[in-house]
Every structure is written in structure tokens, then in C-alpha cells.
């Protein structure tokens, strides 16, 4: 897909890729753009246009990853964005997925023990994900912000290496959950309820992958470089 540029209309962003709806919300941008361009809307909202473009293009084109450009942005900008994303997951996406899963369970006529196992597995996944988000919000992000503010290495050591491993574990569970449903669960449920649940789950997975990509390849790379400089 073609990349978005500053002079493109903000409305075309959504018509070309509606998955960006929650992404623009995270920047505080809401619908009703009229004929404004991306650059104009960003200026109004006091958003760094280059940063905004880098993010929406990352979400749009999987092969697009402007590492050099990204690395030039302040980690504070990134963390702000990542925290907003976490809030969106915790307050909106996870409750929604859970509601849809409950509807699937309600749609099961009888012998729903397999679906209940799926539910238990989902709960386990959710708990692990929440723990991971909490670790980032409460430990990793403050650590980074503090690092940039005080420009000294913490005696407690770095949190940075931890997250990358964590990501893979959480990702594996989500993909297991999808495969259990798509390939192995006998269809003892209402199709519409299941389709809605699965669509939400797959969409969430896409969003999470992009999110993890930004964390692992940008934020962490930046911080590791910065730590190295401080060690000199």
C-alpha cells in the first residue's frame, strides 16, 4: 500500500485503512476532518507530524519501518503514545473481547466443556498480558523516563532486556488460542457470535504486533544505545 504523506487528506487515511481509527484516537484526533490535510490536523492538535506519519505508516505497511527516522524521535513521545495504547487495550479491547467470548459461550446449546476450556485459556492469556503491560507501565517506562531525565545509569540495572522475551511468550499464547479455536474446537456455538469474537481477536493481534514492533525495534533500541553512551 502507498505510504501516507503530510499533504494527504486526513479523511483519506481512514477510507484507505480503517484499522487506523483507534490509532488516531490515541493521538487525540477525532473524526470530522472536513478537507484538512494530515499536517494541518497535527498542527492543530500539537502533534509531531513526522512522528504521526511514522506510526500510521508502520501500521499500514508491514515492510515499512523507518528505523532511522523513528530513532530520531524523543522516547518521551514514544512512551506517551505507548501508554495511550495500553490504556486502550485495558479499558476497551480486553473487556470487549471478553464480552464477545461470553456471548459465544451463551450461544453454545449443550456440552460446552471445550468452550469453557477455551475460556480458561483466554483468562490465563489475559492475566499474563495484563501483567506484562503493568510491568511496562510501572517499571520499564518510568525507568526510561528517569534515564533520560537524569542521564545516569540506575544501580539496579536495566529493565530493557526483559521485555523482548516477554513479548514472545504473550504472542505465543494468543496464536495458540486462535489455532485452538480455528483448527481444533468442534463448532458447538453460534457462528455469528464466534465470528465476531474471532474477528476482534485477530484484529487485536495485528494491533499488538505493530505495538510490539515499535517497542522492540524503536524504544528498546534507542534506550540500549543511550545506555551505552552513558557507560562511556
Amino acid at each position: 500500500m502507498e505510504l501516507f504523506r503530510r499533504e494527504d487528506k486526513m479523511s483519506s487515511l481512514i477510507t484507505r485503512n480503517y484499522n487506523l481509527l483507534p490509532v488516531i484516537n490515541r493521538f487525540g484526533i477525532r473524526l470530522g476532518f472536513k478537507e484538512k490535510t494530515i499536517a494541518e490536523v497535527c498542527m492543530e492538535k500539537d502533534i509531531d507530524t513526522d512522528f504521526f506519519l511514522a506510526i500510521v505508516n508502520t501500521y499500514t505497511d508491514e515492510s515499512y519501518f523507518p528505523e532511522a527516522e523513528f530513532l530520531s524521535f524523543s522516547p518521551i513521545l514514544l512512551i506517551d503514545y505507548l501508554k495511550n495504547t495500553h490504556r486502550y487495550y485495558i479499558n476497551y479491547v480486553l473487556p470487549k473481547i471478553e464480552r464477545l467470548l461470553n456471548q459465544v459461550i451463551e450461544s453454545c446449546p449443550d456440552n460446552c466443556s471445550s468452550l469453557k476450556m477455551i475460556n480458561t485459556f483466554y483468562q490465563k492469556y489475559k492475566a499474563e498480558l495484563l501483567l506484562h503491560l503493568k510491568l511496562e507501565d510501572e517499571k520499564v517506562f518510568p525507568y526510561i523516563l528517569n534515564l533520560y531525565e537524569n542521564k545516569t545509569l540506575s544501580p539496579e540495572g536495566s529493565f530493557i532486556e526483559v521485555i523482548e522475551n516477554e513479548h514472545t511468550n504473550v504472542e505465543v499464547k494468543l496464536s495458540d488460542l486462535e489455532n485452538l479455536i480455528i483448527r481444533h474446537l468442534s463448532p458447538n456455538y453460534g457462528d455469528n457470535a464466534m465470528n465476531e469474537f474471532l474477528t476482534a481477536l485477530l484484529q487485536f493481534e495485528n494491533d499488538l504486533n505493530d505495538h510490539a514492533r515499535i517497542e522492540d525495534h524503536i524504544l528498546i533500541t534507542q534506550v540500549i544505545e543511550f545506555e551505552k553512551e552513558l557507560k562511556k
Partner: protein
Amino acid sequence: MKENVFIVHRSEIIRKGLSLILQEYFKMEIPQLNSAKDLSSFSGISNSTMIIILDAQADLNLQAIDQLKRNNEVYLVGFYTENLEETFNKTFDYQLNHYSSPLQIQKLIQVIRQSGGKNKSAMQDNGELTSREKDVIKLIALGLANKEIADKLFISIHTVISHRKNITEKLGIKSISGLTVYAIMNNLLDIQDINPEELI
């Protein structure tokens, strides 16, 4: 997948005897070798299931075997002339001794063939697990480590790991808790057998 069987033993009596018994099942010529290093002259074979019955008490030439493993699926069967239990060697995937009955030998071959031509069987039964893989997944779900699974099923750790790899490939499930859910959903395991809090 093509099948190749080798008998490697110092004793000609054992070589000839084993070969006679095995020919009944495999219906093919079975090369009889005096020592494992002679295996290196078969290094040109590729994409085969290789069953190598080795004198467990002789020097193994692992170099020649590793070379075969690169291009083939190799199963090592240790042949013992002493009591099994005490001399079990982890190098081998399976074992036989000079008192093994034809039935035991036949069973062994079946097991090898099942886990062997897995490319073939994956296509035939749409990624259904073999009965051996079901044994392994059950033990994984019960929380056993590779070493414990190996001991329980009398196979090597290497074989356990390869079973796990195949299971994950067939099912698309990697995590232990995901495999546990699969095992319960497919009645390989009863939910009472596990502690849902701990494992899932």
C-alpha cells in the same frame, strides 16, 4: 519415504539371525555390517527413514551416524546381549536384546514406522497425531519435563524433543497450557488429572 535398515554387530551369528527375522517384516535386503564406521559408505543416501540396529556394547561411530542424520530420519536401536534395565543407553531411540521375541521386534518396527514416515502420514490423516505423539502430549499436559517423558516412554530425550516439534507443527500450538487444553478437548486427558490453576 524410503526405508533403509542396517544391522551393525561384531557377531556374525547375531547379524545373520537378526537379518533373517527382520527380512520377514521389511521384505528387503538388509545390509549387515561388522562395525559402525562402515556406515560411512552409505552417506550418499538421503531423504530416507533409516533404522540402524547397533551392537550396544561396541564402540559407536557417532561421526558416521551424524553424517547420515543430516539427510535422513535416523532411528537408532541398541542391541544388548545383557540385561536391559541396567544398561539402557540414552544414545538409542529404542532397544532390543537377544531374548526379544519376534513379536517385540515386530512391535518396535511398527512404532518406528509410525513416527517415521511422518511426512507421509501428515498428508494421509490431515495432521492427526500418532499414538506415540498422543502419549507424549498427555505427559506434557501432566507437567512432565522432557527427561521424565523420555524415562516413562523408554525413548531418548532426542526423540521426545522431535515428537514435541512434530506435535507443535501439526497442531499449531506451542505453549504447554495450549497443549493441555488440546489434550483435554480431545479426551486424551481428563480435566480431573490436572490442576487447572497451576497448568493452564
